[in-house]
């Protein structure tokens, strides 16, 4: 099954332990909005994309160029990798995508994998400053999180591609963290995306301006409306699959 998904590299890059940032569409589209912003602000270039017969039969057209919904970007020094997705990951292929990604990540030997996502806050409208929760793949990254100013997630149930990817990072010995910012359960949340980028600035020494995410927040919300709608449909089917869990 895994072979039906491939990562097509357009360049042969000699990686030197890059930091990898991944944001699949989930709660509030936080990961997607944040990774798009990183690509835009850090002026990253596309070097690879993911292709599969299992994806919906679509191609993205941007500035008259063909593109894939899941793309890989890097900077001039090849010191970071940002993986973005313009399509919600269908639950049926979450494991396959994660396996293919993990195989690729093992080859490039990342210094760290940082997964960005949202965590539902039912009263998001009343919330002035959403908190960031975090989870690590191993003891080393668990210790890193202790000084990150994030709240370590202690109990709970996580579903979706981000959590499966973290599980695979843990299983295959990759240093990884999953940062989840409280976000609106039903609508795109550029403000929460800005908060998670501020955290990346603090943790990894970036200097990415987040003003644009706030100023153009309404525009981003309108543009990402359809992606949010389809992501919601996905999330609903994932929630239905949570039904077997005992009450905790």
């Amino acid at each position, binding site marked *: 099954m895994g072979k039906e998904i491939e990562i097509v590299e357009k360049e042969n890059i000699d990686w030197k332990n890059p930091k990898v940032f991944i944001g699949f569409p989930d709660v509030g589209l936080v990961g997607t909005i944040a990774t*798009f912003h990183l690509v835009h602000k850090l002026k990253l270039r596309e070097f690879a994309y993911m292709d599969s017969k299992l994806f919906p039969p679509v191609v993205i057209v*941007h500035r008259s160029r063909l593109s894939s919904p899941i793309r890989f970007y890097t900077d001039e020094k090849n010191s970071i990798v940002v993986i973005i997705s313009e399509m919600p990951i269908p639950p049926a292929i979450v494991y396959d995508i994660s396996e293919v990604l993990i195989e690729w990540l093992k080859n490039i030997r990342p210094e760290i994998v940082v997964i960005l996502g949202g965590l539902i806050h039912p009263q998001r409208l009343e919330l002035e400053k959403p908190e960031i929760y975090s989870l690590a793949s191993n003891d080393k990254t668990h210790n890193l999180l202790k000084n990150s100013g994030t709240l370590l997630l202690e109990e709970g149930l996580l579903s979706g591609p981000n959590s499966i990817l973290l599980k695979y990072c843990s299983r295959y010995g990759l240093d990884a963290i999953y940062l989840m910012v409280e976000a609106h359960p*039903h*609508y795109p949340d550029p403000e929460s995306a800005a908060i998670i980028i501020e955290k990346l600035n603090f943790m990894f020494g970036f200097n990415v301006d987040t003003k644009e995410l706030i100023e153009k927040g309404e525009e*981003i919300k309108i*543009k990402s409306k*359809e992606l949010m709608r389809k992501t*919601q449909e996905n999330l609903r089917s994932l929630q239905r699959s949570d039904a077997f869990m005992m009450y905790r």
Partner: protein
Amino acid sequence: MPVWNIDFYDEKTLREFKKRMLEPLISIEDSADFLILTADLPKARKESIEVNIAANSIEIKAEMREEHKVKLWNSLRREISFTHYHKVIPLPLEIVPDKVKVRFINGILEIKLPKKSHGRKIKLE
């Protein structure tokens, strides 16, 4: 920033293009005595928001502060502009229209709809 995931074959998108009105994202949550309906209305002018309530549906209308343009291809029209939101939402159960509460915070419209009670309380003996 690109427009994400616009599906020009999608029925809802075609409806939006035909009416030149955006349909907001909405959600309905069921709490004990209320339905809480929210609608995301970025760029909506607060004073223009209209909520029309019937026993089993709600209509939301709003003007946008500025137009939202979408570029098209394979069409005589290269661009289409949206200036309004419009959506009629069927409700899953009957509500009490007179006691509805509405607020608009950070571009999100929240409508609290009291459920119509059909039963009566019975005291335990």
